[in-house]
C-alpha cells in the first residue's frame, strides 16, 4: 500500500490530491502508471508529460524497476513551473 500524491493538472484530472493505493511490491514505473490510470482513466491524456517522484526522487515512466515499501510516497509530477 503506497501513498499517491497528485499535483497541478494531474490533481484536476484525478479529482483528488492524495489517496492510498494497493500495488505490487515490485513493478516497473510504466506498470505503476498503468495501475494508477486504471483507477483514474482521465489521467491517460498526460502520460507523455509526467514523471513520478518515488520517495522524493524523480523517476521517468519507463522500465526502471521500483521496489516499494508499505507507506512509500509516490507523486505524479506534471511539467514544473516554479520561479
Amino acid at each position, binding site marked *: 500500500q503506497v501513498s499517491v500524491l497528485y499535483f497541478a493538472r494531474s490533481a484536476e484530472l484525478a479529482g483528488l490530491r492524495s489517496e492510498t493505493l494497493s500495488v505490487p511490491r515490485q513493478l516497473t514505473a510504466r506498470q505503476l502508471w498503468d495501475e494508477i490510470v486504471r483507477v483514474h482513466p482521465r489521467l491517460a491524456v498526460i502520460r507523455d508529460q509526467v514523471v513520478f517522484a518515488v520517495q522524493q526522487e524523480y523517476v521517468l515512466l519507463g522500465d526502471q524497476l521500483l521496489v516499494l515499501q508499505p507507506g512509500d510516497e509516490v507523486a505524479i509530477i506534471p511539467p514544473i513551473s*516554479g520561479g
Partner: protein
Amino acid sequence: MDESEDVPKDFIKLKSEKLSVDEVSELVISPSCGAVSLFIGTTRNNFEGKKVIHLEYEAYISMAETEIKKICRNVRQKWPSVKHIAVHHRLGVVPVTEASVIIAVSSPHRAESLEAVMYCINTLKASVPIWKKEIYEDEYSWKENKECFWASSEK
C-alpha cells in the same frame, strides 16, 4: 559581532504571505561579505496577448525544500566562497507585479554571488516541484518551464 556565529547558512522558505526583499537580503548579509546578489521573480500581466489576472502556485512542499537544499549544496561546491543563500518562494495566489520568488546570495566578492544567483534560479526552474497556474480573464493555463527536463518540447 561574534564571528563564530557567521557560519554559512541556507534559508529556504515556501509561504503564502507576501515576500519581502528587505527580509531576504537581511538574511544573507554577513560581515565577511562585500557582495549580496539578488533575483526577484515577479508576476507579468500578460502572456501571448492574454491579460493575466494573477498567478496561483502550488508545491510538493517536502520535496521542493529537499530539491532547493540540493541546489544550495551544489552552489557551495561550485562557488566555495559563497556565504549565505536564501530562497523564498511564494505559494497560493500572487497578484500581478508581486514577487513569486526571491533569491539572495552573499559572498566576499561580487562574481561568485552573481553567478550563484543565476544558477539558483535556472536550476530551480528545472528541478523544483512547484507549479504555476496563470489565470486569464476567462480561462487558465498550467505553465511549463522550458527548463523542465521531461516536458514535451512541442506545444
